[in-house]
């Protein structure tokens, strides 16, 4: 295990050092005092473990393919944005647009997520142990978004095939979001997911939210639906 500090260093130098340590063959790197710097561990495309001992800023773990990134603090906007594969775990809260447009892997937020969590995801799993803010799951194309706490306003708006589960309140659904009945396979998937990621929040029952598919194809006879959605 290698260890490095961010003290007094610009982001570019920190990311270069992470890549240098990986090239030297270290599989696990502890990064001390990130102090909420932006763009940390962006574009790392090999399996490894990166542990940030403190909060990170915007786009941490963006575009990664394979690493396990652990953040022992909170994360800023665009956490793990466009991640291909791997796992990003935040012990604190996450800012806006967490896990935006991820294509695979998993993003686990043990605290709350702010607005637009899991926006336009194209695969993968987003698990939020706390609550999420406004417009989570907007335009989700594939993948799964799980919120153990309450969902914010306009939840799951205008989705394609993303499947959402909410453990708490979900009383302000977005356009074309409909409540479905969880299958036995869903229940098994959720309980395994919670155990795997050590989510302590006890959730009795999840509500399943999917797309009503009314917005998938334009039909001028459904003028009212469209004028509301747009």
């Amino acid at each position, binding site marked *: 295990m290698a260890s490095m500090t961010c003290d007094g260093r610009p982001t570019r130098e920190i990311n270069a050092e992470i890549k240098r340590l990986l090239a030297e063959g270290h599989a696990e790197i502890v990064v001390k005092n990130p*102090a*909420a*710097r*932006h763009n940390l561990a962006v574009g790392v495309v090999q399996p490894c473990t990166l542990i940030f001992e*403190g*909060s990170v*800023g915007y786009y941490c773990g963006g575009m990664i393919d394979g690493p396990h990134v652990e953040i022992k*603090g*909170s994360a*800023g*906007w665009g956490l793990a944005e466009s991640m291909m594969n791997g796992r990003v775990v935040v012990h*604190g*809260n*996450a*800012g*806006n647009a967490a896990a935006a447009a991820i294509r695979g892997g998993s993003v686990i937020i043990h*605290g*709350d997520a*702010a*607005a*637009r969590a899991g926006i336009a995801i194209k695969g993968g799993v987003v698990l939020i142990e706390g609550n999420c*803010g*406004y417009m989570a799951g907007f335009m989700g194309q594939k993948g799964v978004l799980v919120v153990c706490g309450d969902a*914010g*306003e306009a939840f799951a708006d205008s989705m394609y095939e993303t499947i959402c589960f909410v453990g708490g309140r979900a009383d302000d659904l977005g356009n074309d979001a409909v409540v479905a009945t969880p299958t036995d396979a869903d229940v098994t998937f959720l309980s395994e997911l919670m155990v795997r990621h050590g989510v302590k929040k006890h959730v009795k029952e999840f509500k399943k939210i999917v797309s009503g598919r009314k917005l998938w194809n334009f039909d001028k006879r459904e003028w009212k639906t469209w004028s509301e959605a747009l």
Partner: protein
Amino acid sequence: MCGIAGFLDKTRRGSAGATLLKMLTALGCRGPDSAGVAIYGSGAGDVLKLRIKLGERGAFEEKGRKVAEQLRECGMIKESSVTGAYLHALLEPRVSARDVERFIESLAPGLEVVSLGRRLEIVKQVGSPQDLEAAYGISRFRGTHGIGHTRLCTESRVDLSHSQPFWAHGAPDLATAHNGHITNYHTLRRRYEQHGVRFYTENDSEVIGVYLADQCSKGMALEEAMKASLKDLDGSFSYVVATADALGFVKDPFALKPLIVAENDAFVAIATEEIAIRAAFGSEADAREAQARELKLWRA
């Protein structure tokens, strides 16, 4: 862009100046055009603290001395000093804030009351937070709470007057700092101007203080006015607001602008980016992004 910050010291050690400087320095990269702070120090009864802009940049001792003399002749002034572009004065409040302001502005061209209140003092200028510290030593400003701003100018002029925080002219001790863009600024401004309100800048952020002061003057509590602003202000905004005994924030309904809140038993810290909170407080206090439509007001 732009960076905003708010700090409330629950222990009342009075470290507002030094703390806000650390926070603003961290936010400097978000707003290289200008920097400013509004700090709430100790008051002395009804005595009003004034900060008057003498000119845009540089030293204005001669001009400042003349203005102070004129104020002294009217028997208004208790104490005065000139630092950089500002005349700092303590006044006996025998007339309303608006009348004091009008009188001062009539004394010489280019004068502007930048702040007025029992506790409020605003210092701002073109340049970085470090420049502000070098010119005015803001780290030595004592206070229980305050707000700050680093500006990336997008539309209006880059000068001292257009810098933030803004004092809400006419409402003693009310100050705001804003990150974002108020898109119905011109509509609101026209409406206020028809009612005789004077705007001092072309900066859309100025309207927030005008709006809050107007609502409060109609009998709304500040928190209610902040809530109403979510409906009446359009566009993207995260703003911080402070009075002699309160600090608060508001985030727009679309959550378009960042705002981080961290609170523990010792302090409340609000900042555009967590980087400011970590620079000032290390790993103390968990940070969270404020939600859309969220607002909060703490009593200082």
